[in-house]
C-alpha cells in the first residue's frame, strides 16, 4: 500500500491516490490530496463541492451521481473540471477523501 506524504500529512493511499481510510480525512489532508491533482489552493468553490460530497457520503456511504452533484451544487460539469482537472470522480471525490468508486461505474 503506497504511503502519501505532504508537509505534515502522512496517509495510506491506493494506486490511484485515493485515501484508504476515509476516517483519517481532514482539511489538511484535503490540501495534501489537492496538490496531487494540480490544485494549489482550495477556494470557496472547491469547498462547496467538497462539503456536498462529504455530506452525501456520510449519509449514503457512496459518492453521488455526477448529474445530482451538478444539479444540487449548481456547478456545470465543465466548471467542476475547471476546479478539479481530473473531474468529479477522480478529482473532487479524491480530494474530499471518498474511497474510489467500485462496481461497473
Amino acid at each position: 500500500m503506497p504511503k502519501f506524504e505532504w508537509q505534515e500529512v502522512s496517509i495510506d493511499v491506493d494506486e490511484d491516490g485515493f485515501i484508504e481510510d476515509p476516517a483519517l480525512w481532514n482539511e489538511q489532508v484535503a490540501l495534501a490530496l489537492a496538490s496531487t491533482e494540480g490544485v494549489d489552493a482550495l477556494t470557496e468553490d472547491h469547498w462547496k463541492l467538497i462539503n456536498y460530497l462529504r455530506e452525501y457520503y456520510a449519509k449514503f456511504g457512496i459518492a453521488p451521481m455526477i448529474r445530482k452533484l451538478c444539479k444540487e451544487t449548481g456547478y456545470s460539469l465543465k466548471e467542476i473540471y475547471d476546479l478539479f482537472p481530473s473531474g468529479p470522480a477522480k478529482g473532487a471525490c479524491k480530494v474530499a477523501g471518498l474511497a474510489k468508486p467500485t462496481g461497473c461505474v
Partner: protein
Amino acid sequence: MPKSLKVSDISHPVEQLAQVRPDELMPLPPPYDKIEEQPGWKEISPAQRQKYEASLDGVVAVGVPIPATAEEEDRLVEGFLSGLKKLLTKENNWTFLQQLMLSIDHCARCQNCIETCPIYVSSGYNDIYRPTFRSDLFRRLVSKYIKPGGKYFGELKQGAIELNWRTVSRLLELAYRCTLCRRCAHACPIGLGNALITHELRKLFSMEFGYSPKEIHDKGSMLQLKVGSSTGMNRLAVMDNVEFIDEDMSDLTGLSVKSVWDKEGADVLLIHNAGEFISWPENPGAFALILEAAGISWTLSSELAGYDGINYGLWYDDAQFARVALLHAQAAKKLKVKKIVIGECGHAHKALTVIADRILTGDLSVPRESALVLLREIVMSGKLKLDPSRNDFPITLHDPCNMVRLMGIVEPQREILRKIAPKFREMEPHGVYNYCCGGGSGFAIMSPFNFQDWRLSVSGRMKLKQIVEAFADCPGPETPKYLCAPCSNCKGQIRDLFRYYGVWEKQRILYGGLVELIVNAMVDIKEPFIKWEFH
C-alpha cells in the same frame, strides 16, 4: 515480431518472460496510427517487481505477492495441485467438469482458434497471449501431475512442463489476459473452450488460495453480498438515486416518469446492472419511460442484490456466483413476479439466464428473459409513437459477447435499430462473430498497477479499430456519430478507450445504450433525449 516462446518456458527463472512493445502491436487506423501520439505505458517499478508477480509480461492484474520463503514457494505448488485435483472431480466441480474434461482430452492442436483471438492478434501475435499457449500448458500440467502414470508418460503424451512456484504465479496472471469472449470456442470445429480453461484457472486461484483481483472480489462480489450492490449502494442510496433519475427524466422529456419499487405480483421484475444508476442514469431512466409508455406491469426490487444484476462470481468463483444468483431468484420469489427481465448488461445475462440454471431448480426456477426481447416486442407492437428521423445520425452496433455469441440474441436489437435508426450500419465482423470490447470478464473495472494500459492498448485494440472503420465514410468531428453498446461493462470499457485515444475530440463518436435511442425517437418527448456530451 515478438520473439517466440515455448510452453515449457513458463517455469524458467528469467526476470520477464515476454515483452509487450508498442511498435509490435497491431497498427490502428487513422487518426490513431501514430505510435508517438499514443498514450505511454506505466512501467512496473523495480520495487514493485520485488514484491508482486510481474514476470509474465511486465503487466500486473492481480498483484500476487512473490513468495518470501521456500515454504511459501511450496505452498503455491501444493495448493495448485490440490486445486487442480478438485477441478477434475465431480464432488468439487459441479459447474463445468464435463466441458473441462472435453477440452482437456479432445483438442487436436489444429490451431484454428488462434487467429480468432483479438488479444493475440492485437498484440502482434505475441506467443504469451496465444489462446492455445495457456490451454496447452494446462493440459501438460494435468497430464504430468494428475493423470495416472503421468509422472512417467505425461510429458510424452502432452509435452514438457515443470511445475514450480513461478509456473503457478505466472499462470495466475495469465488467467487475466483473456476476456472469456469465447470467440475461439466458436471457431473450434468441436467447440472446445480456451476461455473455459482460463475460467477454471481463475476459479482454482480464488477458491483454493483466495487470489483474485480486488475490484472483482473484495470490492465486487463481497460488497454486493454485504450492502446489496458492488457500487456500494445500499437500498436507501439506490432509492434516492432512482427518485432523482425519475425527476430528471421528467424534466428532460416532459413526460411523467415514476419508477415502481417492490410491487407484488408484477409481470416483470427489471434488474439493471446498478452501475447504470450512477454512471449512465439516462439508461434506467429510459427503461422506466418505455415500460410505462407501453403499459407493462413492472417493478424494481429493493431487496439485497435485487437491484444489482451483476454477478462477478461468473468470472472467477463458483461459490460467489451461486450466492448472488440465489439472491436474485429470492428477490423475484418474494415479489411473486412472473419473470425477471435483465437490463442492458451482458454478463448478468449469462449469469442469471444460462449458468444459474445449475442452481435455480424447482421452486427457484423463475423465468428469466433478456430486455432486448421485451424491447423488441414493445417497439414492434406499435404502442410507442416513434419517428426514426429523430435518430438521423450514423449509428453502429456493438454486440456484447455474452448476449450475442453465447446466448444467440442477435436479431432483436437489429430489428429495433432498423425501425428507429435510418443510418444504422453494421461493423465488421458482427453478430456471433463480433469482437469483445476488451473489457470482458471484469477487465473494464480493473485498473491496478499498469493493467489499464494493457486493457486499452491490447485487449481493447481490435474493438477500437472496428468502431473507427465502421464510420470510415464520415470520420471527422463535424458528423456526430453513435455507438450503440447495450451493456454496462462494454460501455465502461468503451468510455475508457475513447478517453485514452481522444476519440470524442477527434471523431465525435458518442457511445450509449439501446433504450436511449428508442426514447430519442419517441414523438412525445419535447426535445432530443440524446445529449451530445461525452460522459
